[in-house]
């Protein structure tokens, strides 16, 4: 069964460093998402991406964040200068198309630890 994959599974970085979290959505999916979950808290929407542009973003998704689909398979989330409060589990999700029911398929997550 096709699935969303994410790498790395765990990333440790120093405050102020740039990190790139990588996701490979399901191959024929067109809509992509990033969510995050701070330890012990609920899952929060960050950004959605369709047709090579951001469709919607939350107030969390400030100028420190960016997303990109650099090729036909990867979808990345970049944090330019990490802060301690960026420590969280980051989930990528994908969905077949805008016309499909809003069922999103989630990856296993990347745990980001900022020291």
């Amino acid at each position, binding site marked *: 069964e096709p699935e969303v994959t994410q790498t790395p599974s765990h990333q440790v970085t120093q405050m102020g460093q740039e990190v790139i979290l990588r996701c490979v959505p399901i191959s024929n999916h067109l*809509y992509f998402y990033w969510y995050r979950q701070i330890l012990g808290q609920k899952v*929060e929407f960050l950004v959605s991406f369709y047709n090579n542009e951001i469709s*919607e973003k939350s107030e969390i998704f400030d100028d420190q964040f960016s997303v990109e689909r650099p090729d036909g398979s990867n979808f990345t989330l970049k944090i330019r200068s990490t802060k301690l409060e960026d420590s969280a589990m980051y989930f990528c999700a994908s969905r077949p198309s805008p016309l499909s*029911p*809003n069922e999103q398929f989630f990856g296993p*997550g990347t745990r980001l630890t900022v020291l």
Partner: protein
Amino acid sequence: AQSVTQPDIHITVSEGASLELRCNYSYGATPYLFWYVQSPGQGLQLLLKYFSGDTLVQGIKGFEAEFKRSQSSFNLRKPSVHWSDAAEYFCAVGAHAAGNKLTFGGGTRVLVKP
């Protein structure tokens, strides 16, 4: 704006007993509703979903949920809990609009006593 409330932060249940997790949502139209389960340190696994039609939906692992529009609820149930059901459960709501985000509730942590 859409929102989800899961009133119970923790629930402890004995193995073999029934389980019901509450979920109340706020959304202006007919929503898409989901239940996800998350084991410690793991990702989100979809248990079941409601899009339309029959208001009682069956999911994986013996779970079911009932959509009640009049109560804005989508409660999750399981008749007989297994020790492996100990996990955190998240209810989520999405919209029919293209690209719409999912909004998650705060989660309910289920502990299973032997």
